[in-house]
């Protein structure tokens, strides 16, 4: 990704977000400015026997408002409805863009249907409704449904690179447009909460029963979240030809694979550091030019230590926040949601807050945007994603 030949300018001409912070971009922006804590007790499955009992959740009422219950919409998985809603908004904002490809990140897709299938298998001999569950649990099916709901029929690439999936999807879409392989791509991620993954993080003791406090000296772990976000990326020529308004420019993408361990990052921080350096090289941006870092910042001991070391080493005293502090970690959608937040930060010139922050960790040089948003000059924003399997991805966006 660090090739110098940079090709086309890539503009963000469409943006759609649904997260626990709100059902659309405006609502998400308001919550970011308020520093709203949207982590709440889990309602959609039993958490009586887990340590962690909270998550950032999307209220069903938002989805029901967009897709009223009925024979057709009942068929769609929650994840499909989230994706459809974000895709609808992105298409509306882009106003006439014609994406040729969809690149999407997720980690579980419609897994909750798989869980329901399994529980019914244990409980009953009847197979009524099984076909619907099997046909809709795969990660690609909710995306096909979201496309259908938006009357789009384009090829899709579904990436499952754990928690960096959303950033990888946007990064790959960016590279395709930059190198002229496509002129318009819709890319992002979606992730509905599910019991299996929630319990998985709980079993690893990565999830906390307390508040999520990224980069705090006394951080105790992550809480999960959910949501979907899509960006429409378009070549400058394509955007200009139809008079589209650019919300931001995407300039850099870098990836690395940390082979240290399946679930633990190399403590040296080499994984995220390589991804960040490659993204900077890819965009021809000096580390000192970065005005804001939207960190992966899961608030686990290991993640924040390694990412913090990498940010400190590369970017020094840059303002950093983890917006996961407000909505939890949306896994495969996280990178996409956080890229969308970077677009808003660039457009509206502010630094999103890192809430629940009490005590700085002296190990790092950077400055945490503590608890409240801040108006600031933001020309370049960098977004990090770090996933299981050692997948690291960094995106760099620029104000237009």
């Amino acid at each position, binding site marked *: 990704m660090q090739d110098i030949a940079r090709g086309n300018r890539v503009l963000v001409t469409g943006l759609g977000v649904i997260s626990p912070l709100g059902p659309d971009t405006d609502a998400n922006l308001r919550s970011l400015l308020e520093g709203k804590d949207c982590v709440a007790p889990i309602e959609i499955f039993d958490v009586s026997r887990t340590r962690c009992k909270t998550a950032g959740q999307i209220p069903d009422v938002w989805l029901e408002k967009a897709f009223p219950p009925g024979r057709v919409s009942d068929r769609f998985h929650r994840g499909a409805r989230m994706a459809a809603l974000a895709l609808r908004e992105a298409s509306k904002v882009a106003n006439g863009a014609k994406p040729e490809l969809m690149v999407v990140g997720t980690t579980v897709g419609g897994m909750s249907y798989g869980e329901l299938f*399994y529980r019914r298998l244990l409980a009953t001999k009847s197979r009524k409704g*099984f076909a619907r569950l*099997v046909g809709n649990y795969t990660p690609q099916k909710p995306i096909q449904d979201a496309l259908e709901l938006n009357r789009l029929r384009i090829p899709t690439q579904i990436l499952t690179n754990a928690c960096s999936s959303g950033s990888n999807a946007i990064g790959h879409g960016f*590279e395709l447009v*930059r190198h002229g392989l496509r002129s318009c791509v819709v890319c992002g991620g979606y992730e509905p909460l599910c019991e299996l993954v929630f319990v998985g993080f709980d*079993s690893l003791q990565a999830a906390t029963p307390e508040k999520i406090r990224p980069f705090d000296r006394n951080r105790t772990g992550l809480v999960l979240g959910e949501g979907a976000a899509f960006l429409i990326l378009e070549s400058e020529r394509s955007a200009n030809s139809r008079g589209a308004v650019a919300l931001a420019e995407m300039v850099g993408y870098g990836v690395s694979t940390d082979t240290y361990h399946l679930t633990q990052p190399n403590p040296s921080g080499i994984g995220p550091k390589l991804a960040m350096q490659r993204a900077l090289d890819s965009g021809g941006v000096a580390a000192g030019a970065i005005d804001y870092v939207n960190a992966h910042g899961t608030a686990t001991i290991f993640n924040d230590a390694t990412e913090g070391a990498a940010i400190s080493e590369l970017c020094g005293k840059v303002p950093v926040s983890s917006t996961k502090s407000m909505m939890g970690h949306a896994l495969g959608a996280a990178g996409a949601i956080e890229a969308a937040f970077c677009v808003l930060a660039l457009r509206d010139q502010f630094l999103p807050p890192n809430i629940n922050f009490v005590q700085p960790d002296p190990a790092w040089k950077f400055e945490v945007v503590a608890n409240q948003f801040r108006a600031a000059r933001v020309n370049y924003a960098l977004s990090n994603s770090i996933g299981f*399997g050692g997948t690291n991805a960094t995106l760099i966006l620029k104000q237009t």
Partner: protein
Amino acid sequence: MNFCIQGIGAVTPLGPTGLETWLALCDGQHAPRTRFGKALADRNYFACPVPGKFLGGAARQPRLRRSGTISLLAALAGSDAFADAGLKLDSGLGDRIAVVFAICSGGINYTRRFYHEIATQGANCASPLLFPETVYNAAASHLAALLGVDGQSYTLVGDSSVGLAAIHFATELLTMQPRLDRCLVVGTEEVDWLLADAFASWRMATNRDQFEVYGRTNGTIFGEGAAAVLVGRTGSLMIAKCSAGLPFHSLSETESAAKEMFCHLPREGAFEMIVSSANGTFADEVEGKVFSEFYPAVPVYAPKPALGEALGAGALLQVAVAGWALRHQRLPGTLRAGCKLLSVNRETRSLPSSQALVTCVGFNHQVNALKLCLVQSAY
């Protein structure tokens, strides 16, 4: 810009390497069927697992000591592709090679065991040792670690056509990044009672020990295995055409999607064989209709009756078969072929050919095709 397949590797129920699999296919062998017990309900299924003795080499790797079968299979197929390309499996490939995985069900054994603990004993009893291996990109992570790849590792998920999408993804990476020498594209799949039962409830799997293709569509039998292709900038097997695939939103759209996808490629005469995805489901009818209409004289080979439906590995196994067929100028006979497609190849035979078409109709909304050309005979 065209790219080439430099090495092909596989591990299947028929052999621990690609070459042994190919010889067994030409010999008319089919993978032994193993009966799955009544795991969770009073229903039996057959499947084609890879014998444990084939996995020994991978299982001895420290990194893989706790990993699931799909990771072991992927590591073996990846090594085999390197060996086929005449390359040494280096542990320090850095960022000059990318790893691209094609996954369908993922680590279903570990996923079932982990969720079973949650559902039957409670969330507090779920094992933290199982969870990491349930993540879709676990197999890619392990293989990247074995190869010393510190650059790009991508896992694509999809239906049984995902392998072709992964090859297309690899060609995109190679097109955009001149510094990248190669992409190792791997598809891998493991079998489990749960998978068979789920697909049976969807009328896609049968509980019999055989299935017919281009005949009665009673459902498929699942197979286990992995296939890998090393895609680079030069080589004797050129990828003449591949794509990200085309979605269909309903069964009625499948045929038009297949026509659109298969007929974007040059018409009859431009390739001398088709390696199809026929698996005893609706896919056979769709492919059969399009082949009969557009390519009635091109012989069709369907490897799935011999190997089982290996989902995430399925399309890459088809590509592997097409590559071997072009290299060896032979086409195996399709086992248990029904009478609905006249052009189906029924006996192994010599077939002078320079181009092959690989077609996939996925069960879950994707159609795709790839054309492979023999640039020079290495055999």
